[in-house]
């Protein structure tokens, strides 16, 4: 049984009606009638109010969503935090708007009774002030406590000082009111003192109860979140141990060129992505750094071709600067988008013409970015490509040249296959956008000097 968001007072009658299937009106009439029988209805109402929870937001009750497995890293439901906090607040906000303004009514009642008592005593009526004054104080106290209660439930009032003042005021008022009842009584004896003490305790409990309840529900939410996290970790561990192993085995057995291996690899990548983003706190935004962009491209190409990219990245993280907004990173440490595009073209070329295992190596150092794509295919030389074939020439070499870097196509290690080497010196990375080609010759990069032994075989780019 839960109390709905749409409510008149506490939502107890509506919740009870919903639970039992009776009509709300019947329940409400019965409650009022019971209240007349010595206040039994009021007690019952208060008891149910305290014990029944609010209608929980769907986010909390929802089990681990299946969709997050199907589309790894896409579902925000797994994120701890924002949904859990936001949803209950929303629910109570709605409920506050729909419930009667109890605080105002109670304060009004207190003022009204004070006024009536004043007027009546002026008119000469014998008003029992000993009862009326404490009654007014108690009404005001309850009103303040109510306000505090509602704020705490909605989580709206986060200014602790205001909350503290109001709570203390409510506490004092309630305590004073209860005390007054007995102190102003005619003949104080042991029993009235005991009852007064009990009453004060009761008042304190009444005021503190919402806080305790709130803490309790927070604790329960926290526990639920932790349980979900543990469940997720269990699933992750299980997948890691069993499914990934099986997928690795399938790839091993099937060989790099088969469809089965490709499927298995795609599945493995999705699973890894899901496991990885989960442990990282579930960041799902598209990768903006160069290494992640390369991995994504590798994944996309692997889906279409019988190829397996071994992507190894070394060095500091480097972002990708969009050519549309060259000022996106004023510090200028980012790689231009054209480098990613050129890398993609080089990888696509390797996938199309060589296939099998292709190594992609990215090194980002102080001197610049170096990216090599090495395949073990038949290999090709630039001068053997017909002039009208623009694939590599334009989209890899030309692109790198315009971005201020250089590209080289040369035979792979041991003379087999092809190695496409893209280099972008650090100075070029600071220039905004993809400017006009530099007038000076392409600077010799560290990579070129490292492998200057192969210069004899190397077909250095000198396009346009």
């Amino acid at each position: 049984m839960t109390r709905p968001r749409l409510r008149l007072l506490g939502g107890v009658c509506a919740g009870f009606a919903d639970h039992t299937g009776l009509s709300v009106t019947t329940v409400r009439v019965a409650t009022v009638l019971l209240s007349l029988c010595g206040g039994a209805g009021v007690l019952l109402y208060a008891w149910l109010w305290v014990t029944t929870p609010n209608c929980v937001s769907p986010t909390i009750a929802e089990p681990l969503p299946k969709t997050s497995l199907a589309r790894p890293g896409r579902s925000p439901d797994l994120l701890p935090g924002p949904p859990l906090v936001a949803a209950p607040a929303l629910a109570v906000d709605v409920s506050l708007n729909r419930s009667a303004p109890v605080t105002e009514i109670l304060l009004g009642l207190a003022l009204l009774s004070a006024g009536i008592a004043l007027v009546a005593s002026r008119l000469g009526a014998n008003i029992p002030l000993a009862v009326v004054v404490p009654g007014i104080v108690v009404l005001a106290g309850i009103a303040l406590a109510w306000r505090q209660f509602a704020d705490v439930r909605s989580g709206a009032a986060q200014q602790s000082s205001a909350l503290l003042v109001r709570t203390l005021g409510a506490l004092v008022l309630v305590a004073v009111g209860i005390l007054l009842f007995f102190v102003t009584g005619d003949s104080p004896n042991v029993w009235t003192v005991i009852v007064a003490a009990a009453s004060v305790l009761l008042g304190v409990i009444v005021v503190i109860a919402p806080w305790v309840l709130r803490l309790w529900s927070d604790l329960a939410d926290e526990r639920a979140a932790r349980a979900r996290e543990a469940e997720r970790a269990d699933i992750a561990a299980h997948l890691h141990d069993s499914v990934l192993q099986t997928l690795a085995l399938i790839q091993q057995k099937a060989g790099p060129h088969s469809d089965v291996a490709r499927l298995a690899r795609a599945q493995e990548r999705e699973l890894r992505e899901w496991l990885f983003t989960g442990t990282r706190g579930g960041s799902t935004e598209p990768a903006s750094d160069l290494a992640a962009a390369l991995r994504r491209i590798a994944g996309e190409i692997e889906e279409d071709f019988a190829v397996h990219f071994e992507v190894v990245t070394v060095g500091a993280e480097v972002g990708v600067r969009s050519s549309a907004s060259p000022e996106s990173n004023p510090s200028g440490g980012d790689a231009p988008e054209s480098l990613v595009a050129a890398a993609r073209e080089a990888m696509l070329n390797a996938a199309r013409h060589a296939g099998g295992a292709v190594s992609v190596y990215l090194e980002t150092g102080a001197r610049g970015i170096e990216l090599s794509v090495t395949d073990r295919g038949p290999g090709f030389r630039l001068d053997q490509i017909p002039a009208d074939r623009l694939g590599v020439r334009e989209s890899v070499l030309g692109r790198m040249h315009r971005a201020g870097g250089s590209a080289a196509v040369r035979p792979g290690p041991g003379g087999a296959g092809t190695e496409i080497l893209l280099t972008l010196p650090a100075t070029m990375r600071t220039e905004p956008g993809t400017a006009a080609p530099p007038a000076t010759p392409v600077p010799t990069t560290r990579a070129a000097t490292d492998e200057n032994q192969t210069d004899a075989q190397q077909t250095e780019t000198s396009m346009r």
Partner: protein
Amino acid sequence: MTTPEPIGQGDSARAAIAPSAASAGLRVLIVDDHSIFRSGLRAELEADIIVLGEAATVDAAVLSVIDLQPRVVLLDVHLPGGHGGGGAEVIREAGPRAPHTLFLALSVSDAADDVVSVIRAGARGYITKSASGAEVSDAARRVADGDAVFSPRLAGFVLDAFGAVAGETAETTEELDRLSARETEVMRLIARGYSYKEVASTLFIAAKTVETHVSAVLRKLQLSSRHELTAWALERKLL
């Protein structure tokens, strides 16, 4: 991916290093908690590799290693049992009591802390489980010959961990916290997917020299107190 290359037929120098690797074949033990993987690997391994047995947990693995004294243990990084230390625990427990046994780590994971944990525990190499049977066989033979086996990814990780890309190079050979210029070059080429032979021909050095460099890097990886390595090791309660 390193392409398999035939290793030293009748190489007397290697035979001296590896006295228990008899010419009859290389005796290995497969340690993995998945029977599918064990049987798959067993079927895939090449003919000259003799599988002495299999073990599925840390405790069983420690017992088997001490009992069977294999030359090479193909060791999964994640293993149930023991004190929860996985493959690294097997190496630490069984290593001292099996002096001629070498460990080659196999894992589906290429997370840095997994790599560091087994390498620092004493594994002589690290390859991923997607490697083919021929590649695993080749790696096992290399390990048995006293060489270190580095996958491209491990090489990339080493470059990162030692700050080699940032331009740090060791001045002396005794320095454990940085790679020498030559070691950096070798690692860079391995990370690019070159085999040892291709690294050798690219750098115009002997294949044996490449192996020496790789072994030196492995030693640094095991002994270095670089804070990146120590932090990972501390995380895994290795120190």
